[in-house]
């Protein structure tokens, strides 16, 4: 199975030292994030991570993008499964994908998009983010290739362990 090597335009455009996988090796410029009113502070990530949010509902993807950006994660959005698949087919690289199960009633579901993205060799973290869950839903989505299943709305506390795991895996 071929590994997708991204050509992350953002990091190349900024002249950063890449590591050949299209991923920037800058240290994160974030200062960490303190969740207001909770006293919880997340330390800054060591690496500049890149994420893709796949969701049809603009309020949802704007919210999820804001959460990721608050951690210093560069975040793109795809509003359909087809768009997400095309992004990967064009060679883009992401460390993390958040994907809604349902997307639209007329086109590719999140499950199918996940299957196709994995089929292209993407080995990064893929998290399902959706409003309802049933055992059959979970089974179907895990079978397609997601790594975890989160219920909306996501929070900093929910997403942090995955970002930390990704961050720690990068040398």
């Amino acid at each position, binding site marked *: 199975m071929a590994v997708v090597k991204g050509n992350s335009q953002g990091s190349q455009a900024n002249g950063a030292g890449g590591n050949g996988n299209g991923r920037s090796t800058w240290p994160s410029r974030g200062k960490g994030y303190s969740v*207001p009113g909770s006293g919880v502070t997340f330390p800054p990530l060591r690496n500049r991570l890149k994420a893709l949010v796949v969701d049809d*509902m*603009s309020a949802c993807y704007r*919210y999820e993008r804001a959460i990721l950006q608050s951690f210093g994660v560069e975040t793109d959005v795809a509003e359909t499964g087809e768009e997400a698949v095309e992004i990967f087919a064009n060679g883009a690289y992401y460390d993390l994908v958040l994907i809604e199960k*349902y997307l639209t*009633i007329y086109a590719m579901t999140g499950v199918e998009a996940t299957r196709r993205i994995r089929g292209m060799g993407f080995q990064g973290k893929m998290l399902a983010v959706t409003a*309802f869950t049933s055992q059959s839903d979970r089974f179907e989505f895990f079978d397609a290739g997601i790594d975890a299943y989160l219920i*909306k*709305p996501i929070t900093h506390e929910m997403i942090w362990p995955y970002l930390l795991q990704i961050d720690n895996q990068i040398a």
Partner: protein
Amino acid sequence: MALRTRLHNYIESLKEEGVLDSQYDHVKSLQPDDDPCFLVDIINNFCNDADHSIGELANVLSEPIVDYAKVMTLVCLLKGSSSSIGGCRMAVACRQLHDASVNGDLANCCMAYDKLVNEYYYLRDKLKTVHQMERTIMHNEERKKK
């Protein structure tokens, strides 16, 4: 400052009513310094998405043979959207429609749909008031800077 206080009190009253929950404050806290329109834009996005999905639901439920998979898709999207913005009562109404559609119960689906629409319209009206107050505050702050 008086308008900020009124807005704060208004939102607290919506929380006491159960229309909004603390998720709304969480969304507001994510507003970046360089994007003062973030919150008003998310409110707008929510209303536009929900208007569209509610309309689609009406179409799907009025078909001679109801496609319950489509109903579940649309209600899932609505629940995700409403819960992301803190619209907890609307999210509960979505759950009721979802449960009715899982059972393939058209009568209950229609009742649950009517309840969902009522909750949405109520939430939308309240959010429009919040939206107007936020925009006025933004406008006043812009004028102070000049």
